[in-house]
C-alpha cells in the first residue's frame, strides 16, 4: 500500500536499494526508473524502544499488569517540533493495547455502528391504501373476463404492493456493553500492532496552518489520514483551526473514540492523557459487577 510521497529521485532509490543489497548480487539494472513515491519500509519503521533506552520513561501503567503479561512499550513523539525524533517512551497496558486480534468482533461492532442508527423510510401502499378500488369492477359471472374484486389488487397495474417495505423501519439494536468495549480494545491493539498508533505528549502545535500539519504528518510518515484523540472539552485553538479545513485529519475527544473512526483513518494519534483515560475506562469493565441499577446513577467508584 502506498503510504506517502517521499521526494526521492527514482534512480536515487535504485542506487539506495542496490547499495542495501550490495552483499547479494543486485538484480536491479542501474538504469531502472522507479516511481518517486515508493517508501522503503525498513527505513520508515522505527523499532520499538529497547530495554536500555536512554530517553526518559514518560508514562507507566497505573493499573496492575497481570503477572504473566508485560506492558507494551512505545515511543512518545511531539507535534510541535518538526524533527522526527521521539521525546521518550511510554508503557501501555497489555489488556487494552495487546489483546488478541478478534476480527469477528471488529466486524460485529463496525456493522452495529453502521446499522443501529439506520431508519429506512421506504414505504409502499398496500391495496387498501391505494386510492380507489372499493367496488367490484364487473360481475362475478357472465362478463367472460377473469373474476376480480377490486382494481387495486396487487395483480393489477396501479394496484397496491403486496409485500413491499412498510413505513419507517428501525434497525436499532444494541450489542452487549462488554462486546463494544472489547471492540475498542481490539481496534487499539490492531492499530498498535500494525504501527498505526502513535503516542504524542500533547496536542499543542506551533502554527494553525493546515499545510504545516500536513507536512508534519508526511514527514513522520504517519499515513494519508490521521485521527487525533485528546481528553477534555476544550482543545487548543491552533489544532482546531488546522484540522477544521482538512478532510483527512480529524480531532475527536477521547469519549468519542469508536471502531469505525479508527478503521477509517490510517493513523491514530493518542495523547498521554487520552491513553490514561482510555485505560482507566476500558479496564474497569474487566473487574466491574453486573449493574444493580443503570450506570448513569451514582456508584461509589465509577471511573
Amino acid at each position, binding site marked *: 500500500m502506498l503510504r506517502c510521497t517521499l521526494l526521492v529521485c527514482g534512480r536515487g532509490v535504485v542506487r539506495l536499494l542496490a547499495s542495501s543489497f550490495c552483499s547479494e548480487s543486485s538484480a536491479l539494472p542501474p538504469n531502472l526508473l522507479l516511481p518517486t513515491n515508493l517508501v522503503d519500509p525498513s527505513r520508515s519503521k522505527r523499532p520499538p524502544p529497547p530495554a536500555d533506552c536512554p530517553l526518559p520513561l514518560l508514562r507507566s501503567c497505573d493499573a496492575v499488569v*497481570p*503477572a*504473566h503479561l508485560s506492558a507494551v512499550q512505545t515511543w512518545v513523539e511531539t507535534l510541535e517540533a518538526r524533527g522526527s525524533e521521539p521525546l521518550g517512551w511510554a508503557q501501555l497496558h497489555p489488556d487494552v493495547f495487546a489483546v*488478541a486480534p*478478534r476480527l*469477528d468482533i471488529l466486524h460485529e461492532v463496525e456493522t452495529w455502528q453502521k446499522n443501529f442508527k439506520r431508519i429506512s423510510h421506504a414505504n409502499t401502499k398496500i391495496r387498501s391504501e391505494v386510492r380507489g378500488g372499493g367496488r367490484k369492477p364487473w360481475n362475478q359471472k357472465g362478463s367472460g373476463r377473469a373474476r376480480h374484486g377490486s382494481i387495486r389488487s396487487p395483480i393489477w397495474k396501479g394496484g397496491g404492493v403486496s409485500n413491499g417495505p412498510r413505513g419507517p423501519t428501525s434497525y436499532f439494536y444494541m450489542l452487549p456493553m462488554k462486546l463494544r468495549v472489547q471492540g475498542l480494545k481490539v481496534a487499539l491493539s490492531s492499530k498498535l500492532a500494525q504501527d498505526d498508533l502513535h503516542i504524542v505528549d500533547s496536542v499543542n502545535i506551533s502554527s494553525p496552518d493546515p499545510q504545516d500539519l500536513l507536512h508534519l504528518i508526511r514527514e513522520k510518515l504517519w499515513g494519508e489520514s490521521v485521527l487525533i484523540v485528546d481528553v477534555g472539552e476544550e482543545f487548543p485553538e491552533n489544532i482546531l483551526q488546522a484540522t477544521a479545513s482538512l478532510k483527512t485529519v480529524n480531532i475527536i475527544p477521547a469519549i468519542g473514540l469508536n471502531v469505525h473512526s479508527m478503521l477509517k483513518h490510517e493513523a491514530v494519534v493518542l495523547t498521554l492523557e487520552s491513553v490514561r483515560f482510555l485505560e482507566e475506562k476500558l479496564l*474497569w469493565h*474487566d*473487574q*466491574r*459487577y453486573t*449493574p*444493580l441499577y443503570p*450506570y448513569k446513577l*451514582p*456508584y*461509589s*467508584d*465509577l471511573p
Partner: protein
Amino acid sequence: MAALRTAHPAVLRGALRLYIRAPGPPASAVGLRCVSDAAPQDQTGVPSESTEEYKFVERLVPPSRVPAPPPRAGPSPSGWTPPADAPPPLAYTVRRSRMHNIPVYTDTTHGSRRTTLVRKVEGDIWALERDVKQHLKEVMGTEPPTQVNEVTMTLKVKGHVDSELKEWLVSKGF
C-alpha cells in the same frame, strides 16, 4: 343538689381534670419540637445548610468494582483457592474470572448432551488440550473428544468434567 352547690372548687377542678386538657401540644406530638422551643441562640431568620450528614448516604452507595480477595494461603473453608503468586511456567495460562474463580463451565443441550467449556485461555491452547486429554485419561480412563476454538480461545470437552478440570487447574496454580 345541695351537695353540688356546696362542693369545694378544688374538688370540682380535680374531678374535671380528666375532661379538661391543659393547654399545649396534642399527646401525639410528644417527641416533636417546635421552632419556638429552640434555644434563643439557635433561632435565626435564615435556615442553615449542612452537608455533614451526607456521609450516612454515601456509605449506602454500592461499589461498582469486584474487590480483590483477602490474601490467604491454601483453600478457604468454602473450597476457594487463590491463584499462585508466580504464574506457572507453562506455554499457556488460564485467567481467573472477574469473581476470581476458575473459568470452567458446564452446559447441557438437547436434554442429554453434556459439555464442559474452559474459557479465558491464553498462549498455546493446543498444549492445554494435550495436557487436558492426558489428565482426563489418567483420571477417567477414557480420552473424551475435545474441540479447540482458536478464535475465542476456548476448549470444549465432551461430558461433565468440570470438577476434575477445576481441581487440576488449581493444582497447576492458575
